[in-house]
């Protein structure tokens, strides 16, 4: 067992390799592009939210004029009205 332990001790002589000096710059590049993608996603979500709010608001207004959803999108048909 002692001989085995001595053999295992050899592994402690293995030196650690240093990572390349420019590796952190690459990490930073990826962090910056990650941040940018995150920002773009946020902007898209906010724009979508605003767009939907605007549409619902406009639809609400058109309903006040007794206009159905279908007539809002296409003035050709009114499925629910008889006139």
């Amino acid at each position: 067992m002692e001989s085995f332990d001595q053999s295992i001790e050899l592994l402690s002589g293995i030196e650690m390799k240093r990572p390349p000096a420019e590796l952190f710059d690459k990490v930073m590049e990826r962090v910056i592009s990650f941040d940018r993608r995150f920002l773009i996603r946020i902007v898209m979500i906010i724009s979508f939210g605003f767009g939907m709010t605007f549409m619902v608001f406009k639809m609400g207004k058109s309903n006040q004029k007794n206009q159905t959803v279908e007539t809002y999108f296409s003035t050709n048909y009114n499925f629910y009205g008889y006139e």
Partner: protein
Amino acid sequence: MVDEGELISRITQGDKNALKEIYELHALKVYNLILNRFNDKFLADDITQDVFLKVYDKSISFRGDSQVSTWIYRIAFNKCLDELKRRKKTINGIDTTFYQVSAYEDEANISVNLTTILDAVDLLKQSQKDAFTLVYLDKFSQQEASEIMSMNIKAFESLLYRARLSLQSTLSKNKGL
């Protein structure tokens, strides 16, 4: 002494300097942990980048249940497991020429022994190899290694004991140790 918890909370606020400090503290061990498994410098570069990107991304979910260092090494270890799964292969032979042995050792004698030992390590079962590599090549304490492998310390000690027994048996078959 740097308060790593403080660094993590600064990273959550988007502080890039805090990320640099964390990187400087742990990059060496993370890089070698990956290198000891794949022997591929380019892959080690890529996975190290992934690890620190994940540290940046997930810093908000760090609950402080373990030490920051253990959390980072666990991310690195799991990335290695993912890569192994992706490649559907185990370590492709540990390249002994890759390692630098300290100059004060008797190089001729050691290179023979080191090759034999690393070849024998390569024959261990994956979990035993992971445990053995974490302790003897990556130089983590048994407590740290058990946390990195998300294992109970007793179970880890038992796994490491079995790894040592298998290794000893392989070595004695090869060399009569």
